[in-house]
């Protein structure tokens, strides 16, 4: 079904009786849902931005001091490079934003494999759809695993910890936060968690699609449209991550 042959002349395409955008209702619904979900994430990210900029930064309070001397404090919003600098197996080495860079790359990579799966679907190539779906699923799981590691590291903190209300505190949870104001940890957990839940649902959907494709459901149906619909969702989740990444790690 790579090419859709509509008999309706372009002039009459909006005159009813046919699908004016040459798209079935399922895909339209997915588009509309994604529009809606955009607003869910926007609300969260804008909230984050408002709270974040209600706090001073390290350099606001220490004019002239280089970021190299950054320290964690409840007084100012932490610099992401100082918080996210660990990489698995490389204990004790400071590699700011390297790990999250890898995570981002993995997710974007899985979007590429998703595109390839969709394209294989257009060619009605069952084996290729299966192959690329598997890669996509693998990418999804790797991302989730990396996120689990990152959360784990964030929760357990650095060996030095920080003094909070006269007590040494390590890491972060929803109530205390070694790295800076509690709000930073609250939003970090909530937004990356909310995004992670989306990725998890995406992985579950991808597995379903893979399972159906492998069982020849779509071949019998004559089209791989489901791969496309779930693909839209997967790209969306990816795109949202780019924004989450920008907000939490780059600004």
């Amino acid at each position, binding site marked *: 079904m790579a090419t859709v042959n509509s008999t309706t002349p372009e002039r009459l395409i909006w005159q*009813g009786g046919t699908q*004016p955008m040459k798209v079935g209702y399922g895909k339209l619904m997915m588009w509309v849902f994604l529009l*809606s979900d955009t607003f869910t994430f926007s609300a969260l990210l804008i909230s984050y931005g408002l709270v974040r900029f*209600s706090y001073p930064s390290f350099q606001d309070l220490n004019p002239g001091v280089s970021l190299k001397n950054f320290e964690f404090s409840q007084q100012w919003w932490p610099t992401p490079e100082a918080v996210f600098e660990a990489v698995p197996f490389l204990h004790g080495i400071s590699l700011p934003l390297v790990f999250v860079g890898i995570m981002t790359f993995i997710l974007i990579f899985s979007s590429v494999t998703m595109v390839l799966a969709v394209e294989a679907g257009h060619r009605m190539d069952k084996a290729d759809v299966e192959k690329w779906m598997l890669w996509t699923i693998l990418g999804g799981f790797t991302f989730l695993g990396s996120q689990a590691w990152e959360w784990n590291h964030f929760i357990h903190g650095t060996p030095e910890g920080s003094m909070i209300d006269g007590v040494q505190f390590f890491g972060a949870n929803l109530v205390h936060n070694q790295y800076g104001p509690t709000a930073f940890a609250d939003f970090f957990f*909530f937004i990356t968690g909310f995004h992670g839940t989306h990725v998890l649902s995406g992985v579950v959907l991808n597995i379903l699609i893979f399972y159906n494709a492998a069982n020849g459901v779509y071949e019998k149906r004559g089209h791989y449209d489901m791969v496309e619909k779930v693909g839209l969702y997967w790209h969306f989740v990816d795109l949202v991550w780019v924004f989450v990444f920008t907000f939490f790690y780059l600004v």
Partner: protein
Amino acid sequence: MAAVTAHVADVHAHEEHEHHELSFVRKYIFSEDHKTIAKQYLISGIIWAVIGGLMSVVFRLQLGFPNLDMAWLKPILGQWVSISAEGVGKLDPNFYLALVTMHGTIMVFFVLTAGLSGTFSNFLIPLQIGARDMASGFINMLSYWFFFLSSMVMFVSIFVETGPAGGGWVVYPPLSALADANPGSGIGMTLWLVAMALFIVSSLLGGINYVTTVINLRTRGMSFDKLPLTIWAFTFTAILGILAFPVLFSAALLLIFDRSFGTSFFLSEIYVNGQALPNQGGSPILFQHLFWFLGHPEVYIIILPALGITSEVIATNSRKPIFGYKAMIFSMAGIMFLAFIVWAHHMFVTGMNPFLGSVFMLLTLIIAVPSAVKAFNYITTLWRGNIVFTPAMLFAIGLVSFFVSGGLTGIILGNSALDIQLHDTYFVVAHFHIVMGAAAIFGMLAGVYHWFPKMFGRMMNAKMGYAHFWLTFISSYLVFFPMHYIGIAGFPRRYYQWSGFATFDSYADLNAFITVAAIISVAAQAIFISNFVYSIFKGKKAPANPWNSNTLEWTTDNPGHGNWPGEIPTVYRWPYDYSKPNSAVDFIPQNIPYSSTPESNLPHENEMIADEKEIEKLEFDRSIPD
């Protein structure tokens, strides 16, 4: 006169279902038929309206007669009425707050959002655009059952020991976030949030279906410039819901975390009972921004469908084309767009930067323009019309009256300098009960009276309809008009009683008057409900087109599954050809081709005859997968 031209295959692939009988459960309970789902929404909405209405009687009694002995309510309200040593029953002040909160929540969301959009979008979209059903019957069914689940959670919350949510329908933190702050912030509030999250899922599933159905399933010839204004209104409403509700969803999730998991999204520097809370850094104002980003579009989610229904009812019963069809569409589009950028007019007194306040003031006042366009278009449609005063028509005219009188006070409130004085007084209560509460309920009732014959195949009793209208119309004004004075006098909203303030004593009689009028307006609804129930079973059998109306739903005789027994009619003209000059009849339905009405065609319509043959040949593209 119906010259339905027969042609080719069906628009929607439902033929295969038509032949086997559905079980009782699939037909009436877990039904995927849009007409059944519409009735489910309607009846749920009516039940909720009764509950919400009775709640208002209880708190109005408290406000109008502060010394009233409420002991007689003890059997229903139990612990919420305490009996003093002298045997006098008093309503619990915290329960008063909970009642006001639940009344608002129920009316805004469960009656005027689910009950109104759920009923009429579901019923009319497929029937008026000429489709066999919604794009996805299954998702449509899910939408209703999510709503049902949400209703159940909200209903159960009324009976928990600490009472239902008590922070107002806007549930502002910190009050709503701290269980210790008020009994109504306990488990009742948690259930409120859960119910709303389910409600949002339901509304999203419904909205997605409405929009895709309108895009993909219009019958041959039903281009967007031939859509009835109802469909335009439902579509805009769905878009508003799809884009605004998710923001409330985010806010509700964050609030759930603040309540249950110790986060501080909306909390900072708070003392409860002299104890400092550890929460730092959040912002309660942030919640207000998120809430009103939904909250303002929500009021248009409520009024737009009512306005759509009114357009249809007024044009039909004035026997005149709607005045300014395109202007109606553009003003609805304008209202929809503006609805997203005016939310902070609810927040003028939150310490907002006055410059920002004046930006929001300007944007807010611009809404008056499209609103006025609509009001004038209704009036000009009525102007010199051949008016038929059916009960539906009376309610539609009632809506116009309320929309105008309530809209005027909106313009007053939109001025930030005036709003600083009037905010959170009964003036606001008067404003929104007239422009939203009364107007939307009147639109909904107009819809019920108008489409009841198509829904249930029987007519409602017109005499009872007239009695219902006049009692409701007069008593609604008697309830809400005096509230303007009370508000200007400074009465704050959400107060349990005012007898502690000597200045307010001179208004005691006005408050008692309002209460009496409120009781009459609630009691008048008994006429409607008995008429409704009686007519479902015993009403006069309805003809296919009792109001001589032009839209497609009237071309099918008491629709069964699939809506039209045979071919779906093709559409050739807009829906408002009433009293067309030189036509022998005073209405020409949408499915009558121009080629069969040469006597009444306008020059440009004669030119459109050339396209008719081609439009009849339009074919649903089955190579496109759903």
